[in-house]
């Protein structure tokens, strides 16, 4: 178990919690590596029937923690490549994964939501991909999002940037279930319990079949996506916009 990702298991349901609540569970390189290791370990555990992915504190995940790696092209590339592997690992789990989204799921955080099979959130949550506002290309998430909500809606969401409310996100298909905020975790657990009632072999076969129908979501595509995103983040447009964003955060005019 890692301190960045905590793990609880009960009755075949494993809950992985992102554990950096002081920075709204921003995805640092270390956190992404820890999450990847946790998912790989859980994937090989034959007693697991459902995975729930959640965040400690008030926010599921505020996106990539780029501050420490902004000027380090190698680390940036590693970060995006590992995140793409996390998403593939979630897609390839032999059992369903549910994201339990409280507060916000932004950028890479919203990517984690869409890599899971199901996502439960609440109406007041903020979800979305503001990458283009910051000069970043959300290439890693695009193939998954196209599959999740269709090419037209993916185009609208990724090109217009910004964030949308939880209820609208549910209408658009970003999340699959809406629950009142205080009941979020019990709702995710109820869904997990329903899934546990199904045959594990049937669920595994169904997930395999669904993955086969998404041939474009593969290692090669995700590698190219990570390379593209990493390359564009290194260019002046993104560097300037991100630095301006960090300065605003330091002044306290935007959330951490």
């Amino acid at each position, binding site marked *: 178990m890692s301190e960045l990702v905590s793990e609880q298991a009960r009755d075949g349901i494993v809950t992985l919690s992102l554990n950096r609540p002081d920075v709204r569970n921003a995805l640092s390189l270390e956190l992404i590596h820890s999450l990847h290791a946790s998912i790989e370990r859980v994937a090989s555990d034959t007693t697991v029937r459902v995975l729930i992915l959640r965040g400690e504190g008030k926010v599921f995940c505020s996106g990539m923690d780029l501050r420490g790696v902004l000027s380090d092209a190698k680390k940036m590339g590693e970060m995006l490549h590992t995140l793409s592997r996390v998403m593939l690992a979630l897609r390839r789990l032999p059992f369903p994964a549910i994201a339990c989204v409280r507060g916000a799921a932004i950028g890479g955080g919203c990517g984690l939501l869409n890599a899971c099979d199901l996502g439960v959130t609440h109406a007041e949550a903020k979800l979305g991909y503001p*990458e*283009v*506002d*910051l*000069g*970043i*290309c*959300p*290439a890693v998430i*695009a*193939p998954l999002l*196209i599959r999740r909500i*269709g*090419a*037209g*809606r*993916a*185009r*609208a969401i*990724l*090109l*217009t*940037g*910004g964030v949308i409310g939880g209820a609208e996100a549910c*209408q*658009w298909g970003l999340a699959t279930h809406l629950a009142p905020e205080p009941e979020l975790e019990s709702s995710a657990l109820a869904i997990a319990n329903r899934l546990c009632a199904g045959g594990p072999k049937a669920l595994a076969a169904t997930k395999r079949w669904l993955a086969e129908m998404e041939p*474009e979501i593969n290692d090669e*595509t995700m590698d190219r*996506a990570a390379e*593209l995103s990493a390359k*564009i983040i290194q*260019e002046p*447009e*993104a560097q300037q*916009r991100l630095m301006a964003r960090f300065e605003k955060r330091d002044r306290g005019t935007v959330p951490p």
Partner: protein
Amino acid sequence: MNPAPTIHRFGPVELHNHSNELSGLATIRLCDPDRRQALGSAMFDGLELAIEKCEALTGSSRFHPLSEPPPANAVRVVMMESNGTTFCSGFDLRALVDDPDPSQPLLASFLRRLAGCLRRLRALPAVSVSVVQGPALAGGCALATACDLTIASPDACFGYPTHLLGVSPAVSGPVFHARSNSARPAFLEGEKIDAATALQRGIVWALAPHTDQLASLARQTAMSLLAKGPRALAATKQWLLDHDDCVNHKSLQNALQASLSLVGGEESRRLVRHATSARPRA
């Protein structure tokens, strides 16, 4: 106050190249309200020239969005709108009836030219936005949905009543299907989709509260898109295009062939004649 945009006129189509705070925006405007912006030969001529101008203004042949930034001062947002109360009513049926050749070469030409416009609109490295008031039907609906986003007024409606003409809407299928999973009722029933339903189905991205607020919504949308990172926006659009298996060269070509396969048939000639017989000449 913004200075007037530079206006290029191509018959019934205008291209407005904006400046100052709207610098980076070009607007294609259909300007034949008396004929409900019908897609006839002159309209296609104008559209093709306007799209060609947009290709030049966006620098589409001068850079590859995945590997380099757009040229400085390139147009980054293209809007398509119309004056009057109809966005575009589809093919000019009167011209089709007046075409004496039973093999319907004019209909075949319209289908090919529409397919060409859809392909070129999709491929623009700028974000494209259709601004729809009133009906956007058949080829008009195809033009609207070929853009990346559609914003609309409450009186907008969308649909493909083309089966009434014995014409298959297949040519428009890829771009509509990429936008919404409601292609079957739209194409098979010829259902007219009102603006609120179009919003629910993902055909429309944003709806103005009132018709007279559509221009303000269009301006707000343009300003918002122009504020994004140009490099990131162009790369994201290209990456999305590369991973959209609904709309690619092959799917558009197959769709065109499916529509062309009915051209010149007795059914199509009879139904086009019937559809225009009740209409007064424009």
